[in-house]
């Protein structure tokens, strides 16, 4: 368009504004027809003018729906819905209003969410909503906010009663200050575990974003807003309530997957994409595709690669690769299972010499070396001055949590319990370390308490947890050492051994842990810890069963236990283990006033 045309356009437009503002009736097409030189341009500008006009209108005049949107539920504050006193509105979104409420019956705080108004007249969507709520209720995952109840009422939309999660959202956390790599990975792993648990049940979140993730004051991650009212398109019911139509996009589309941005069907992989965006944002403080406008953001999601240069250098290669797999635009090429992400992140976290720390050490080492040369200090001393994530000797007490019985067979409990005890025995050899007794620890078996809670109750600096699985003559064991304040995975390893070498295995585990908590292995301690030896598997089996029954402290258990210990002695009379078992049983039995009966049995059997 040349200057002349521009002038004509401006004049035409000015004339049109006059007609428009004076409210004169005019046929727009006829008006445009008078300017054949810039017909298309003029038409476009007239549309712009009308848009601007309505923008000004909406600015100075509230819209009916404004009141509806904001009023909904406001009148509920201070009211009671069944046994819930509505205290205040704590959130508002496309999905309805969220209230903080007090459950007067159970005397606890809950979050109450009104069901999306769209569900009011849609029985299919309502059914799916209820079904998904049921699925979610069955999830019972520590990183997913729990659904307590659904309140259904006639004529009005119902309510969901949810766990109230205090604390800041991940987006608030990111904005507050940059996250450390370890913290990022620990949060990412918990998100991945939550999402993976949901995916296993067929629940897809579809709106995973830092605003939907809460960090509780005790350091746990809780994912909110799972799956509800976001029906799966792939099921053929294409009522996407979170519509992709720009005017209905509520909040930011920055975490939308390319298939969502295109309005294509989505499945669980859409969550994996969003998960990638969240990790990226935790690492760089920027979401990978966010732009000034929603339209731009959507275009970037579809077309552009995130700026990989922004990622800090110290990020382990594995995590970088994982992130790139999550942010594959084509869902077919994307990471297919978020459980894999949880595992990979877990492995990176448990590796004690994560690259970040190595780098740090090197940087510090160089700095120190220079200083040492200049000042002429004893070079041999510098290493111990290096800062480490866990300072030396900070861990003075430790609890071995009941190892998980991975077989799922209750008849194998004796084995996992026995392994727990074997590890405790091994660790108790480290004189400077206080290892919590078996009785105190066993109460946590199968209990759903957080590590910080357990650590606080037992008053320990660290815990060891893990799992055991026995398949025929092979034993597979995983163990990890977790420092509790701040919660930090210090070490983890997997072992796969012959059953007969089990004691050797435990002494290796104990040595590894001793090294982690930087206990100096004196020659004496070293000797005690390496005293692991091969054993007769049949003897050991009988011994473990015996101890398992004896530890029940019931007359019947005692009887069975002693029978097994006796068998153990028969299998290998040279092994001291069963004798030690008998001795300790005798001691505690005496203490428990079972003395006479037991003594008789015992004397008989000897």
């Amino acid at each position: 368009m040349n200057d002349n045309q521009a002038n004509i356009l401006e004049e035409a437009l000015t004339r049109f504004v006059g007609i428009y503002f004076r409210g004169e009736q005019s046929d727009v097409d006829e008006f445009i027809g008078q300017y054949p030189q810039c017909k298309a341009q003029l038409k476009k500008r007239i549309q712009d003018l009308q848009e601007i006009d309505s923008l000004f209108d909406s600015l100075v005049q509230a819209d009916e729906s404004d009141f509806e949107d904001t009023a909904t539920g406001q009148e509920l504050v201070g009211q009671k819905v069944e046994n819930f006193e509505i205290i205040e509105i704590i959130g508002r979104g496309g999905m309805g209003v969220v209230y903080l409420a007090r459950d007067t019956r159970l005397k606890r705080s809950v979050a109450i969410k009104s069901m999306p108004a769209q569900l009011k007249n849609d029985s299919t969507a309502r059914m799916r909503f209820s079904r998904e709520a049921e699925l979610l209720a069955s999830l019972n995952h520590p990183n997913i906010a729990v659904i307590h109840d659904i309140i259904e009422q006639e004529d009005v939309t119902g309510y969901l009663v949810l766990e109230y999660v205090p604390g800041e959202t991940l987006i608030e956390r990111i904005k507050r200050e940059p996250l450390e790599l370890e913290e990022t990975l620990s949060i990412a792993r918990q998100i991945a575990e939550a999402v993976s648990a949901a995916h296993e049940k067929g629940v897809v979140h579809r709106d995973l974003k830092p605003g939907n993730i809460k960090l509780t004051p005790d350091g746990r991650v809780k994912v909110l807003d799972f799956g509800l009212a976001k029906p799966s398109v792939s099921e053929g019911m294409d009522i996407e309530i979170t519509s992709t139509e720009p005017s209905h996009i509520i909040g930011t589309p920055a975490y939308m997957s390319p298939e969502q941005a295109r309005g294509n069907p989505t499945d669980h992989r859409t969550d994996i994409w969003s998960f990638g965006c969240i990790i990226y944002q935790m690492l760089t403080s920027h979401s990978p595709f966010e732009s000034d406008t929603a339209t731009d953001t959507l275009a970037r999601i579809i077309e552009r690669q995130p700026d990989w240069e922004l990622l800090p250098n110290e990020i382990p290669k594995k995590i970088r690769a994982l992130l790139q797999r999550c942010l594959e635009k084509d869902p077919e090429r994307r990471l297919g299972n978020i459980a894999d992400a949880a595992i990979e992140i877990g492995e990176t976290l448990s590796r004690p010499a994560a690259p970040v720390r190595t780098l740090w050490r090197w940087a510090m080492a160089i700095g120190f070396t220079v200083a040492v040369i200049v000042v002429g200090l004893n070079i041999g001393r510098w290493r111990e001055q290096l800062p480490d994530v866990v300072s030396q000797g900070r861990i003075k007490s430790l609890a071995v949590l009941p190892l998980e019985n991975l077989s799922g067979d209750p008849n194998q409990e004796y084995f996992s319990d026995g392994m727990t005890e074997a590890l405790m025995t091994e660790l108790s050899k480290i004189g400077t370390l206080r290892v919590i007794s078996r009785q105190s620890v066993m109460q946590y078996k199968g209990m759903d308490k957080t590590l910080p809670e357990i650590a606080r109750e037992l008053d320990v600096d660290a815990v060891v947890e893990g799992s055991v699985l026995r398949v025929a003559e092979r034993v597979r064991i995983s163990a990890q050492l977790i420092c509790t304040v701040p919660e930090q995975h210090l070490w983890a390893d997997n072992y796969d051994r012959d059953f007969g070498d089990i004691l050797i295995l435990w002494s290796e585990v104990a040595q590894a842990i001793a090294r982690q908590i930087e206990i100096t292995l004196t020659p004496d301690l070293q000797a005690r810890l390496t005293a692991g030896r091969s054993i007769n598997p049949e003897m050991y089996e009988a011994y473990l069963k015996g101890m398992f029954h004896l530890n029940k402290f019931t007359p019947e258990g005692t009887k069975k236990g002693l029978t097994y210990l006796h068998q153990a002695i028969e299998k290998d009379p040279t092994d001291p283990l069963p004798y030690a078992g008998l001795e300790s049983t005798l001691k505690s039995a005496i203490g428990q006033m079972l003395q006479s009966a037991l003594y008789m049995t015992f004397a008989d059997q000897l």
Partner: protein
Amino acid sequence: MKPIDDQKTQHLVALAKEGNQPALNQLCSVYGERVRRIIRFRLDTKLRPKLDSIDIVQDALILALGGLKDFTYRNEGDFLRWLSRIAENKLHDISKKFHASKRDIRKEISFKREGSSTDGRFYGAAEPIGTTTPSVIMRKKEALDRLEKALDTLKPEYKEVIVLKRIEGLTHAEIAERLNKSTNAVPMLLFRAMAALTIAYGKD
């Protein structure tokens, strides 16, 4: 769009005058973002970043609504202009304070933005669960941002006449008085200004 009948706002204003908290909250939700936008349109660009601290608008609104007793409701436009005027005065007060203490607004960081203007923590939400306020005005965020940018490219006289007409709702005679022009000259000035705005708005 359905223009709201004045009665709703009037009713809320009446309730708020009596100290009804939900009514006050609702007025804030409906008008808070509008007030912020209006002030942005009127302000010169240097002061704008201060406005992005949502707290100022909120404080101003609370202040304004606290003074509701002195306000006689005539119509919605009136109410909104009255609100935004108080908020803007408050903003100027604050900026004067900053000038007085010889601080440069452009370097002022204590008014750091807390999230975007649409993150829904505007009112009444002590602990938002990461949700947004889907009010009509929020949904038009992008278009309004664009309009604001277009307004900034206009010559001051154009910008002023548009604001006086479309936001302040003044008559041609009143505008003429403000701009020191003859009443007859106002319509043409306004049309030219709007045409220029439309062209600026359409440009990419």
